């Protein structure tokens, strides 16, 4: 291995009674792209915080550039060239690109007065280092996530970073932006700057890593050069169980009875056009397409959050008007939104409260007061049925991990006993283990006779859960596939091909 920039040895860290890290050692070499992988709660974030000096380990040693530390402060960590790019990028949304890039140098040099020429010069040089150009006087809040990330990277480089730690850097990026981020990481490598890439998106890890380290339950369970490491092996180490994709049993579609949901010639200007499809009881119907293909707008229309301009919606053979979410609920339609944090959960309220909110009128007694006991019983039922990992239903919803939060959102809608379930990106930001559980759940719901519309651009997810998949392109249903007739890679080409054909040529 080349010269080591960072090495930690036998690090342990406990919080109260919980062991976050248990005797972990790892190292990062100069110019290396090292990927740190693990489920939520596996100890990844604790390790980042120890390396950046935010937490002090209970036992263990840290070596940076050959210097030995028992305790490391954030300032020491920064002086040694360790830069963490957090998911929020640590930028000032109200200031310009130039100022955001240069402000740290200004402060580090202890300057009391601002020379704007100097600020712009520093910013220009910084951007030139990674060969990107951004308007220096643009206000950061008007930029895309990808551009903000670039600014954060430039800032890290200007701080003479030797290791840049990126915490889930691709979460909010499009495929194209991810590709250019990887190019920049390669470029950093050529300059001898190491990257510690923390992620649970395994196909990206497989693409970028020189070396992969996997954590599970606070321990390092695997470390290997990336060559020959496939996604399946990583999944196995991450979750400690084999996720067997071959042995999935799909529910039987009840093709004979009348369609649960039928959409005829649905139109909404600038969003979608001439949409036709059927959803049978027991069927999982996937709808995929790139962002802006109209898939989300279509889902919102079926739930009454947007109104179609023309066309028919039939539920169990009868034409219905869906003008509001209440109309949709009355028809037995439930919608689980894309952004569960913002649209689906009251984070500060208890798990129980969140789950009963859609059936709140059933929980009320004669004078409109809530029956606490019944609420708790209902909460308990769903915690058990959906295997939500929590010591108690009275805890706040924000105490749960992402996968478990998603289950609470599901429980909330299941409690209302829907016939048709619309899921929009149900596993976005959820780790592999919880993802497999949610997929199981979707299949078992279909088995119970529900009709499920699954909106997603996660190709393995579509192939593993859907009976049929509709591909949307520019607001139209471009193609329809049966699961048996298409492979993951074919579907991927179809999806991406859609963008290649419709580029802004």
């Amino acid at each position, binding site marked *: 291995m080349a010269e080591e920039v960072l090495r930690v040895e036998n690090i342990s860290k406990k919080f109260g009674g919980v062991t976050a890290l248990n005797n972990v050692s790892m190292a990062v070499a100069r110019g290396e792209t090292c990927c740190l992988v693990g489920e939520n709660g596996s100890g990844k974030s604790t390790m980042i915080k120890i390396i950046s000096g935010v937490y002090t380990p209970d036992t263990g040693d840290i070596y940076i550039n050959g210097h030995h530390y028992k305790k490391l402060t954030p300032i020491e960590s920064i002086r040694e060239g360790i830069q963490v790019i957090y998911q*929020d990028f640590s930028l*000032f*949304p*109200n200031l310009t690109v130039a100022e955001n890039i240069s402000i740290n140098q200004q402060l580090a040099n202890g300057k009391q*007065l601002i020379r704007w020429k100097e600020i712009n010069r520093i910013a220009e040089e910084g951007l030139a280092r990674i060969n990107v150009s951004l308007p220096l006087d643009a206000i950061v809040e008007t930029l895309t996530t990808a551009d903000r990330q670039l600014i954060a990277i430039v800032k890290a480089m200007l701080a003479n970073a030797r290791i840049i730690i990126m915490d889930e850097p691709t979460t909010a990026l499009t495929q194209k932006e991810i590709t250019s981020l990887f190019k920049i990481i390669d470029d950093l490598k050529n300059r001898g700057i190491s990257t510690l890439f923390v992620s649970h998106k395994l196909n990206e890890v497989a693409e970028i890593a020189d070396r992969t380290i996997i954590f599970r339950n606070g321990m390092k369970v695997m470390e290997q050069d990336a060559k020959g490491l496939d996604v399946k092996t990583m999944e196995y180490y991450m979750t400690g169980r084999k996720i067997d994709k071959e042995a999935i049993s799909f529910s039987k579609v009840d093709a004979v009875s009348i369609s649960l949901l039928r959409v005829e010639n649905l139109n909404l200007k*600038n969003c979608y056009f001439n949409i036709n499809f059927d959803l049978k009881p027991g069927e999982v119907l996937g709808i995929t397409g790139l962002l*802006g293909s109209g898939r989300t707008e279509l889902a919102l229309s079926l739930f009454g959050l947007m109104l179609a301009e023309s066309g028919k919606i039939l539920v169990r053979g009868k034409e219905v008007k869906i003008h509001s979410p209440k109309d949709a609920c009355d028809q037995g339609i439930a919608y689980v939104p894309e952004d569960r944090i913002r649209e689906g959960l009251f984070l500060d309220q208890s798990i129980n409260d969140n789950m009963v909110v859609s059936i709140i009128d059933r929980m009320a007694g004669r004078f409109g007061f809530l029956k606490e006991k019944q609420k708790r019983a209902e909460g308990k039922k769903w915690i058990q049925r959906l295997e939500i990992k929590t010591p108690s239903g009275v805890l706040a919803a924000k105490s749960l991990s992402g996968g478990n939060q998603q289950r609470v959102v599901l429980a909330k809608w299941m409690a209302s006993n829907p016939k048709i379930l619309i899921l929009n990106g149900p596993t976005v930001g959820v780790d592999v283990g919880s993802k497999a559980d949610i997929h199981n759940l979707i299949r078992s719901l279909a088995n119970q006779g529900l009709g499920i519309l699954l909106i997603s651009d996660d190709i393995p997810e579509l192939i593993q859960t859907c009976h049929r998949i509709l591909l949307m392109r520019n607001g139209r249903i471009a193609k329809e596939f049966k699961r048996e007739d298409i492979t993951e890679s074919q579907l991927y080409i179809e999806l991406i091909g859609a963008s290649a054909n419709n580029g802004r040529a």
Partner: protein
Amino acid sequence: MHYKILKTNEFIVFLILVGLSIVVGAVNPAFFSLATLFDTLRGSIVYFIMAFGLLPLMIAGGIDISFVAIAAVSSYATHMFLIGRGYQGGVLPYFLIACTIGVSMGLLNGLLVTRFNLPIFDVSLAAYTMWYGFNLFFIGATANFDLPRGTIGYYARFLFTVKDPFAGTTGLHVSIIYVIGIGLLMWWFLKYTTIGRGVYAIGGNREVAIRSGFPVSRVLLIIFGIMGLMSAIAGVTMAFLSRNFNPVIFINQPLDVLAAIILGGASITGGRGTVVGTSLGVLLIQVINRALILTGIPVEWQRLVVGLILILFTSIPALREQRAKHTSHTTEIAQTDQP
């Protein structure tokens, strides 16, 4: 670059100001006179000073209403102290003593906010109520018209005088020089000092400001001190311009000053705001005031009009965002959807 200026809040306020002046001038030509201009400026002086003092705090994301109480206590206490000792000299000692008191009171707010991590508004609400009570209970409950001999001429110390057929002899008061001086100083402070940029940084994201190494507590203390200082200057100036010291001066004015700053493009949530915008906001409110008088519309309308303009202004960013969302989506699909 040039087009950008046209889209700023400042420019819109400026346009409204010009438009309003033209309309009022058309209805009542007396509006276009030096006397009216000087009178409007005279009425604006203390609002300019208080608004400049409050602006940094607003940019940092804080809302304060105690500045008016600071103006009242620092000016009234200074006056009662000096007059009690038979002082008959000029205005300078008034400013020096009041400023010392004002800065101390501002810093007290600042210490409560930084040391005990209290919300700025809560502290200011307490201070607002408490200091007016303090003034009335401990210092005096009535306005005092008994000015030292050396200060009597101050209210009519003009840079220029004009003879006006309606208003008689009037002029531009000297304290407009302080206003310009303070305005330039604040502009420089906010744009060219690291502390000043720290004010914007704190308003943009306080957590990140701490992480980036801004001395956040020190910045807050400094701008609380500035607020206290400006309040004291405004309090004393107002007393001399109106020739009396009043223990409850400005008690109804804090929202007018806040309104001026917000009209000038500052945001309630912090991070935005400029000296130029604030100045235009102050002027706009004063011109609306005078416009209503000169056009014979009842004064009660003033609040209604200012309120409506505020609603208009606060909704502009929201409307822009909505439109941006809409257009971005349609452009994506528009090119291929038409069969």
